[in-house]
């Protein structure tokens, strides 16, 4: 077993101080401003325990909402929102009747589970849409909403191609995953990644995560899970439409839409210039038509 070098310095069960750079012990990554950090969520390891959801709500002090059975497999959370920054989706692809799978492909239970989260896009459309500067890029290359500056205009909500940001009904402001900005500042691994018992959610330095994820895909292919691929790493599905890459990226084994992810997400800002020009062209056309009609009328008189 790999014991992180500093782990033996803290043998006690109860500590009265915070361990400096604790993330080194819990995930082997030292958190330093100026570097890029993110999540690699490997859905082949997710067991659907929802520990990430609980850890997130506990750390961020978020209330429970939507108390009720949804009837959609074991998913009673529904979707990401202002009070739900991690959401584990459950997709049953067992088949129906006689079509039920009788054998399982390696590393697949035919019950897909994926812990969804804000993608912290490299070119974040929510950040581009924010008129107040409330949404900013942190020193850890993550995207965070500053609650004291947000005025609740909601432009970021439709700008997000993944449907992540939501306005809270409690304070009217936009809320989303902060990639535990406060924890990163204190040298702590984000709560969800630390709580994940199977390391389905891995936190780390982005380039290291891309390397690790690439190797994991190769490993899965060798083991027979040939449908494994990355979503959101550079030059993969999910990193389309000028998003460049997603700091929170995924390893999937079925089409993105099966996991409720867009096949080819795009930035809203790339549609701004064409729609503005379309508007201008329409105005020009109408002006010409009106001028033509008026001059015709004058001729008849």
């Amino acid at each position, binding site marked *: 077993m790999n014991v992180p070098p500093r782990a033996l310095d803290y043998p006690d069960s109860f500590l009265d101080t915070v361990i400096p750079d604790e993330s080194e012990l819990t995930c082997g990554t030292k958190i330093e401003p100026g570097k890029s950090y993110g999540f690699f969520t490997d859905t082949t390891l997710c*067991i*659907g*325990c*929802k520990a990430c*959801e*609980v850890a997130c*709500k*506990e750390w961020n002090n*978020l*209330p*429970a*909402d*939507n*108390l*009720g*059975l949804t*009837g959609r*497999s*074991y998913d*009673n*959370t529904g979707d990401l929102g202002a009070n739900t920054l991690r959401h584990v989706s459950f997709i*049953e692809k*067992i*088949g*129906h*009747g006689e079509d*039920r799978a009788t054998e399982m492909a390696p590393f697949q239970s035919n*019950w897909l589970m994926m812990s969804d989260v804000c993608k912290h896009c490299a070119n974040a459309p929510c950040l581009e849409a924010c008129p107040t500067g409330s949404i900013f890029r942190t020193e850890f290359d993550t995207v965070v909403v500053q609650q004291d500056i947000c005025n609740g205009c909601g432009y970021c909500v439709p700008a997000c191609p993944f449907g992540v940001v939501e306005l809270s009904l409690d304070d009217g402001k936009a809320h989303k995953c902060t990639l535990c900005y406060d924890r990163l500042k204190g040298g702590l691994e984000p709560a969800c990644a630390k709580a994940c018992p199977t390391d389905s959610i891995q936190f780390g330095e982005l380039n290291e995560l891309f390397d690790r994820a690439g190797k994991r895909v190769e490993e899965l292919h060798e083991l027979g899970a040939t449908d494994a691929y990355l979503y959101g790493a550079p030059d993969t599905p999910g990193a389309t439409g000028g998003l460049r890459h997603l700091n929170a990226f995924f390893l999937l084994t079925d089409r993105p839409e099966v996991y409720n992810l867009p096949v080819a997400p795009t930035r809203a800002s790339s549609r701004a210039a064409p729609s503005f020009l379309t508007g201008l062209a329409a105005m020009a056309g109408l002006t010409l038509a009106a001028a033509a009609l008026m001059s015709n009328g004058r001729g008849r008189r």
Partner: protein
Amino acid sequence: MDALSGREPFIMIADGKSALFAPSGMKDGPLPTHYEPLESPIHNPLYSTQSNPVAKRWEQADNHLAPPGDSRFPYAFTTYRLTEHHSAGTPTRSVPVTAELQPEGFAEIPTELAQELGIRNLDWVVISTLRGEIETKALVTDRLRPFHLDGGRTVYQIGMPWHFGWKGYATGDIANVLTAVVGDPNTSMHENKALTCNLRRGRLPRVDMPRGER
């Protein structure tokens, strides 16, 4: 516990290992065989003795067992836990963030059986055994595959998580109303995994109305 390594999981046995031939220490044996559970939708296909003759039974008015193949209780019934709740749910059903993950009691019902009985997802259903009856919500799923037993007969299995009660935020009827008090001969562990039941769409008439919905 120090004496047993992690590769020796049978912690109640001195050497931590299981044995196919166990001449001593067990109340049954020495060789394993197949017995049907004390309540079963079929007769033992392997062997003329239906169920374990040394299983602990407590014969009393509220603890009857249905005979094998009883047509009043045609479905197999099992109970289990969910990762979202701990124990009988006492610590987790009263904590909002864990209660919302599995907020209500439910029974998982195979799609084929649901179609046969006209049960839709999230309908109220009544599950009954010889010990009692409860109402709960239906979660219709393809994950519960019908069994083809006893010369082509189809037997459906109904599964019910066991964590619920009527205190806290996540509530629901109690699966133990349905289970029987019968014990494994060696450990006295109760049988909560293999029973027989009946199922219908609808609710129970009740004097005290736990959710105030009726």
